[in-house]
C-alpha cells in the first residue's frame, strides 16, 4: 500500500528535478485577439511533458513560443518571460537561430525536404557548421538516424529522396533531422496525427528512448498518447493553462472539473 503510493507520489516532489525551460506569465496576442493568458509552466529536464486541450486552446501557440517560431508571424506578440536554463529566450541578446538549434521542432505533418535522406539529416549540421569533415558529418548522420530508429531501414538508400519513405518513416526522418543539430529540448507538434497506429507506436517508443538525452514537449490531441508517453501533462483550455501535473494524476484524478470533463469526453 505505502509502496504503491510512494511510487505514485515521487514525481510530485520536484526537489530532484531540474527545470529546463520555464514560462512565466506568458501572454500571446494575435493582433487584437489574445491567444494565451498568463501561462506559468515549468518544463523539467529529461521528461516528456504533453500539452493537451481542445483545438484552438493555445497549446500549439505555447509550443511555438518555446523556440520563437511565432516570430515569423508579424501580428503575433509574446509577452511574459520564457527561460531556457534560466536565460530569457526573448532577450535581445539571444540569437534566434542559435535558440532553434538548441530547441528543435518536429511538426504535425512529416515535412522532409525535397532532398535525399542523407541531405535531410545533414541539413541542420551543415547550416550550423557543426562538423569539420565529411567523415564527421557521415558519423553524425548515421548516429542521428540510429537514434531515430531509422538506420536499419534506410542505410542502403541514403541517396534516395526523403519523400520516398512511408509516412511513419518520414516522421522519424524529421526526428532524426531535428536531433542531428543536437538540441537540448525537442518540441513535437502532434507528431503522430498523420500516422497509422503501428507507426505511432514506433514513434512513441522512440520518444520514450529520446527522453534520456532530451527534454521533450509534445502537443497531442490523443489523450491516450499523452497518457502513454509523458511524465507530466498540462491541460489548456481557451488560452489558459487549467491544470498541470503528473500524467498519472491528470488521467486518474484531475483536480479541475474542466480537465475531468475534457479528458472524459464531456466538453469538446
Amino acid at each position, binding site marked *: 500500500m505505502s509502496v504503491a503510493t510512494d511510487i505514485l507520489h515521487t514525481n510530485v516532489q520536484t526537489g530532484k528535478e531540474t527545470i529546463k525551460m520555464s514560462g512565466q506569465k506568458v501572454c500571446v496576442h494575435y493582433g487584437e485577439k489574445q491567444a494565451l493568458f498568463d501561462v506559468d509552466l515549468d518544463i523539467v529536464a529529461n521528461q516528456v511533458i504533453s500539452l493537451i486541450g481542445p483545438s484552438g486552446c493555445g497549446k500549439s501557440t505555447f509550443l511555438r513560443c518555446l523556440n520563437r517560431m511565432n516570430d515569423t508571424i508579424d501580428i503575433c506578440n509574446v509577452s511574459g518571460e520564457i527561460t531556457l536554463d534560466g536565460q530569457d529566450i526573448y532577450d535581445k541578446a539571444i540569437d534566434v537561430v542559435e535558440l532553434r538549434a538548441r530547441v528543435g521542432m*518536429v511538426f504535425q505533418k512529416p515535412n*522532409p*525536404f525535397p532532398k535525399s535522406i542523407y541531405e535531410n539529416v545533414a541539413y541542420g549540421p551543415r547550416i550550423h557548421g557543426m562538423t569539420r569533415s565529411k567523415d564527421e558529418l557521415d558519423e553524425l548522420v548515421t548516429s542521428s538516424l540510429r537514434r531515430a530508429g531509422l538506420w536499419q531501414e534506410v542505410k542502403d538508400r541514403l541517396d534516395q529522396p526523403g519523400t520516398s519513405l512511408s509516412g511513419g518513416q518520414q516522421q522519424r526522418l524529421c526526428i532524426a533531422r*531535428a536531433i542531428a543539430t543536437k538540441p537540448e529540448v525537442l*518540441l513535437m507538434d502532434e507528431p503522430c496525427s498523420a500516422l497509422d497506429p503501428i507507426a505511432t507506436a514506433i514513434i512513441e517508443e522512440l520518444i520514450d528512448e529520446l527522453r534520456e538525452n532530451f527534454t521533450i514537449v509534445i502537443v497531442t490531441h490523443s489523450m491516450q498518447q499523452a497518457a502513454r508517453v509523458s511524465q507530466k501533462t498540462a491541460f489548456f483550455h481557451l488560452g489558459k493553462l487549467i491544470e498541470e501535473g503528473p500524467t498519472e494524476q491528470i488521467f486518474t484524478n484531475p483536480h479541475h472539473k474542466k480537465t475531468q470533463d475534457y479528458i472524459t469526453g464531456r466538453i469538446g
Partner: protein
Amino acid sequence: MQIWLTLLAVIVAVGGLYYAGRSRAFAVTNGDATILHSNPAFHGGMVVISGMLPAVFVLLGWTIFSRYFADASVSALLGEEFNALSELEQGAFLRSAFGLSQSQQIGDVSSLQNKAIEGYSAFFASTTLILQLVLAALIVGGGYLAWRQIRTDLRARQFVERAVSFALIAASGVAILTTLGIVLSLIFESINFFQKVPFFEFLFGTHWSPQSAFEGVGSDTAHRNSEVFGAIPIFAGTLLITTIAILVAAPVGLMSAIYLSDYATPNVRAIAKPMLEILAGIPTVVYGFFAALTVAPFLRNSGESIGLSVSSESALAAGLVMGIMIIPFVSSLSDDVINSVPQSLRDGSAGLGATKSETIRRVILPAALPGIVSALMLAISRAIGETMIVVMAAGLSANLTANPLEAVTTVTVQIVTLLVGDQEFDSAKTLAAFALGLVLFCVTLMLNIVALRVIQKYREQYD
C-alpha cells in the same frame, strides 16, 4: 433582316421542341413527376437534340456540296459553247459566274455568262425553298419521333449526356485538328521548299540572303538558291538574342519572385505583383521603339565612350529589351510556384535554425525548381517567337556572329520579311518562310518537351 428572321425561326423551333418534350414528360406521369426516370428537362433536351441535330447536319452537308450540284446543273444548261472550253477555263468561268450571281450588281457580261448567272440564280432560288422545307420537315419529324418515345422509364438523361459528351469531344477536336492542320501545311510547304533547296544546305548553310535569289524558279536555279538559303546565321541570331534576353530575365525575374513571395509584406506584394504583370501587357511594338530609340543609342554612346564600336542596331539592345519584356513571365510564374511550396517546409527549415535566406537557397528553390524551369521555358518560347523588338532594334541583316554588339536577325523577323510584299506563292523565297516556321516549331516543341520532362521528374519531390 433575313438573318434575324432565321434566328427567330431557330429560337422558336428549339423552344417549341423543348416545351413539347417537357410537357409530354409531365403528361405521361399523370402528375407525379418523381416516377420519371429522367428529369423532364432532359426529355425536353432530348427532343431538341433529335429535332435539331439532323437538320444541322443536312444544312452543313448542303453548304459543302450544293456548289457541285449547281455547277452540274448550270453546265448542263450552257451546252456546246461551254463544252468547247478547256477544263481549267470551265472552272474559272463557273467561279466568276457564281461570284457574279451572288453579288447583285451585274455589269457588262457576255450572253453565255449571263445565261450561267441566271442558271445559278434559278438553281438557288428553287433549291432554297426545298431546303427550307426539308429542314422544317427534319426538325418536326425528328422531334416527333423522339416525342413519341417519351415514357416514364425513358433514359432521356443518358441520351442528353451522351450528346453533351460528343459535343465536348468535338470541341477538343477543333483545337487538335487546327494544330494538326497548321503542322501539316507547314510540312507540305516545307517539302515543296526542300525540292528547290536541299535540306542539309538549308539547315547548315552559313549564308542567308534570300533577296538575291530572285533570278527564277525551278530546278535550274536550285544550286544557286541553295547558296543563299543557309539558315545558320538567323538561328544563331535567334540564339544570341534569346540568350541575352534570358540572361537578363532569369536573374531579375527570379529575384523579384523571391522578394515578392518571401520578403515583401502583403501590402507591397499586392501592389508590386500587378505592376510587374503590367509589363506583360505592354504591346511589343512599344518595346520595339523603346529598344530602337532609347536603348540602342544609349548603348552605342556608352560603348563608344569606352572605345567599343557598337552598331546602331545591336543584338544587345534587342536582347536587353526582350529580357525586360519577359521578366513578368519569369517572375509571376516563379512567384506562384515559390508560393506553392508548402509552408511546412519553411517551418521545418526554420525549426532547425536556418535563416530565411538559407531556407530559400537550400529548400525553397530546389523544391520549386520544376516550376521555375517551366516558367523559364515559357519565357524562352516567348522570346524566340518575338519579332517586333528585333525588327526595330536588331536589324534585318543576317550576320553570323557571336558579338552581341553587332546587328543580327532572327527567324521570325526573316519570316516576316520573306512574306512581306508581292511574291509568287510558290517561289523559293516564300516557301523558305514555311521551312523556317517548321524548324522554329520543332525547336519550341523540343523546349516544351524538355520542360515537361523536368517538371515530371521533380514533381513528386514534395507534396
